[in-house]
């Protein structure tokens, strides 16, 4: 940080220790993931003795990935996850933005009451059983909408957007009004374009939230064909239900899926589930980091 032109040998040693500690944390973080990646690309015959410490594949074979990606349960999981997440994000971003805009207007009658009612939902959550019965009563059980609607508008992200909208200069809005724009036009043509980066941040928040959601899908969706990828993964890796991926017919056969070590299939399955997060990780770093830093500095 500060200028350190003259460094004693002691300080140099300290510095090496500091950086080494952090690099150790990097290894601790990445090694388990790289090990699974290496495992999933190893030659099927070499997987049995594959070390948990290695991060390089033993031989190379895309078999695990090909088999998983061609598997109907995996494909359906990916399909379900993608469309359910996309729908949730769209509903979430628009619902949150529209509500936040109204709540950010200083003169709105009842603003304080609405704000308090939203805060109450953060503090008091009656629990999973009442939620379950609500879904049941609304006829949403075992439909994807139960999962899509759950937490579709997050009180936290709502507050973030309200704070953002409150900062929009009044002059801009007044100029739009003078030009004869009605409140809808002002919102869609002036406010939303101004809020692009805030909306992108919120969209990313929702994306990560919904992509990673498994619990609600697990308790609301009975049909395996409706499961998102996280639940398929959970059934296979956590519950150890080999049938889900290998298939009853193959479990005792020496063909195809069964021939490949279950361990490698599990590794591949975990990575397939992470892949979309990795794909947007540069964006996540940019927006999440900025959002968190500014939130903290504000206080």
């Amino acid at each position, binding site marked *: 940080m500060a200028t350190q032109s003259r460094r004693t040998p002691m300080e140099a040693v300290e510095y090496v220790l500091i950086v080494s500690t952090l690099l150790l944390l990097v290894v601790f973080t990445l090694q*388990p993931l790289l090990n699974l990646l290496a495992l999933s690309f190893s030659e099927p015959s070499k997987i049995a003795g594959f070390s948990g410490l290695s991060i390089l594949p033993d031989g190379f074979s895309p078999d695990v990935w090909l088999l998983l990606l061609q598997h109907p349960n995996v494909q359906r999981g990916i399909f379900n996850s993608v469309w359910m997440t996309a729908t949730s994000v769209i509903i979430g971003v628009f619902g949150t933005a529209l509500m936040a805009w109204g709540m950010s207007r200083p003169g709105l009658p*009842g603003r304080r009451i609405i704000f308090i009612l939203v805060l109450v939902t953060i503090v008091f959550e009656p629990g999973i059983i009442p939620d379950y019965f*609500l879904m049941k009563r609304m006829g949403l059980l075992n439909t994807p909408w139960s999962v899509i609607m759950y937490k579709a508008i997050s009180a936290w992200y709502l507050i973030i957007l309200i704070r953002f909208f409150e900062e929009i200069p*009044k002059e801009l809005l007044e100029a739009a009004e003078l030009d004869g724009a009605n409140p809808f036009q002002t919102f869609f043509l002036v406010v939303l374009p101004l809020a692009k980066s805030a909306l992108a941040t919120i969209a990313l928040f929702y994306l990560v939230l919904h992509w*990673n959601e498994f619990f609600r899908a697990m308790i609301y969706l009975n049909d395996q064909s409706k499961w998102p990828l996280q639940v398929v993964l959970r059934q296979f890796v*956590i519950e150890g239900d080999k049938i889900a991926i290998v298939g009853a017919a193959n479990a005792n056969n020496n063909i195809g899926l069964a021939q490949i070590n279950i361990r490698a299939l599990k590794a591949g399955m975990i990575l397939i589930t992470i892949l979309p997060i990795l794909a947007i*990780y540069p964006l996540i770093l940019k927006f999440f980091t900025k959002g968190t830093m500014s939130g903290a500095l504000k206080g």
Partner: protein
Amino acid sequence: MAGQEEQQLATVISDGNVPAGGADALSANELLASGNTLGAKVRQWWPYYAMMAPGLIFFFIWHYVPIWEAKMAFEQVRIIPPNIWVGLKNFGVLFSSPVFYQVLFNTLIISGMKILFVFPIPIIVALLLNEVRGGKLRGVIQSAIYLPHFLSWVVIAGVFIALLSPTDGGVNQIGQALGFGPVNYMTNTGTIRWVLVISEIWRSAGWDSLLYLAAIFAIDQQLYEAAEMDGANRWQKILHVTIPGIVPTIATLFILNMGMFLSADLNQVINFQNDVNARSIDIIDTYVYRIGLTTGEYALATAAGLFKAVIGMALVLISHVVSKRLTGKGVW
């Protein structure tokens, strides 16, 4: 540190108050347009309410109707409706059940272990990161250690099951190289709580350090310069400038974590649970899930959930007030 909620907590920490209502900030235009009559108000504000309508309806259905549904905690659930009102009977059953005290104990011990062993780690990581000169190296380290925060607990549990496998997991291979026998950490009741702690560290040590790092960056550079003039070395600067500078952030996050004490993170625990270790890490939330949705004791499960919700609310409110008093920052 535990769960999505807290990340969000951290994200929105601000000094904002609930805004006051009223006509304190009407623009000139609005003043012209608004008489004080109800009709004028409706004419002026209905578009905003129209835009808020989907959100308001959403909050009502998904957050307020369940509060109504929770009345089941005071009922006897019958297959053929209506249910019968039984007052506090379900709570009586709950509080006289030894299993309930076991899960309460588990919840408290897991939360306690996390506060003790997970909470300090991001602070240390932030202090170390701050010492790294050269933005490039720091950037690389940060990008690597933030990643697990964005993975689901299903994925993380899958990673740890592989990592801790007694036959070929990395941890046991290191252990065996050092001369220890293989340990099945996932089924050993003595180690499974530590697995929760370590996996929580894996997930949040990096990301949670970001808030502290932001606080460190906000410290006035002149303080460091003054300390250097006084001949302070690295540790003295950390001890007398950096740490005092982030104490408010530490206090805020500590108090907020205390508010989450009864949670102990359902999403984590449910993925680390198996038939063998279930008893040692059964927490209130997994208990509610199990007796409610797998055994079908709806009323009892709702009562347990409501118990947690009410105590949890009290904890969050207390922590909010304490935090506001001490550091000026609250939960919202």
